[in-house]
């Protein structure tokens, strides 16, 4: 087939292709709603949810949510092959720097035996399992949406998809979890989100090539 013939065939194909952003809008709210429903039915929300969300403990919900939204922004930027996504990276960088400072401060003011005591609960393992479980659907949705993109960095885009999913799942799980200490947040929520991000990177490296 000659190139002119191919061009004629391509031009006749006017079926619009969905953009990654359009697919995100279609699939992510649904995936997150399903994960939220799963938490409300399979787990239970913490007894003091209302007062927790009105206190400083709301950070356990807000920080993962902020990470998820900034990862969403980054993923959308990376899906364009010519874009550098500089501002998106800067926002992620600021958030990560803030978290690193918080972690350093938490380690400085909390003695190690106290951290061990905080983590000595079956809820810890529960968190490390629950967050990835709740992240599975959003991760599948985000990767599917990004397959409509044209990223030059499949693993990085996959990691962003992982952070979208991990952040959303951690925010959802926080409605259940009664442990509010910063030194619980990092080993539990932080590690769980990092795990989902890593899974996203590994999957993205395969699924987001084009």
């Amino acid at each position: 087939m000659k190139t002119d013939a191919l061009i004629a065939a391509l031009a006749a194909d006017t079926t619009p292709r969905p953009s990654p952003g359009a697919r995100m809008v279609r699939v992510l709210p649904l995936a997150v709603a399903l994960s939220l429903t799963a938490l409300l039915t399979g787990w239970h929300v913490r007894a003091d949810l209302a007062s927790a969300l009105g206190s400083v403990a709301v950070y356990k919900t807000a920080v993962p949510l902020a990470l998820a939204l900034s990862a969403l922004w980054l993923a959308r930027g990376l899906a364009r092959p010519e874009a550098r996504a500089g501002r998106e990276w800067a926002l992620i960088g600021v958030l990560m720097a803030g978290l690193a400072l918080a972690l350093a401060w938490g380690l400085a003011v909390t003695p190690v035996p106290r951290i061990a005591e905080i983590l000595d609960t079956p809820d810890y393992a529960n968190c490390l399992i629950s967050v990835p479980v709740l992240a599975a659907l959003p991760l599948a949705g985000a990767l599917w949406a990004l397959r409509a993109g044209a990223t030059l960095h499949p693993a990085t885009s996959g990691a962003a998809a992982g952070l979208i999913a991990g952040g959303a799942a951690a925010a959802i799980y926080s409605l259940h979890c009664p442990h509010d200490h910063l030194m619980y947040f990092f080993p539990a929520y932080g590690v769980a989100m990092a795990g989902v991000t890593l899974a996203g990177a590994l999957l993205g490296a395969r699924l987001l090539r084009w």
Partner: protein
Amino acid sequence: MRPSESLSWEALMHAANRGDQRAYARLLGEIAPVVRGIVRARGGALGAEGCEDVVQEVLLTIHLKRQTWREDAPLRPWLYAVTRHKVIDALRARGTRVEIPVEEMAEILPAAEGVDPFEAHDMERVLGQLDPRAAQILRAIGIDGDSTAETGAKLGMTEGAVRVALHRALKAVARLRERMIE
């Protein structure tokens, strides 16, 4: 540079995104020599036909990824990024490793149109692997120059069904080519 009635690539793609087939055909026709120039500059060892296979692969990718161009951005940086990615990928799959510095993309001259038929091989093999109806539709529209309506009349399908089949056929072609060179 170009005749005064010529439209910018952005305007053509903008119209194409709204279903203007003539604008889109014209845009792809103008893009093809640019892509061909880049492929020949880097993959000359593949020979004319081998190069044209890569050109067609790039055009197919441009088509299937066109939604990742943002309409308020210039088209060329996007086009160069897609082309560069796909050319490097296609040449690597054929055993040639190339580097294309981004800043050189715009400096490579478009290939001159000649009597060269721009026949490529891979596409024939792919058409052979496609289901017969899909191949028939691609040939009718591409080679015979039929419209989707004419193709539908010829094959006893509605125009809408031809459109859907054409879209699926092009996606299948991209998938088959990917598998063929791996």
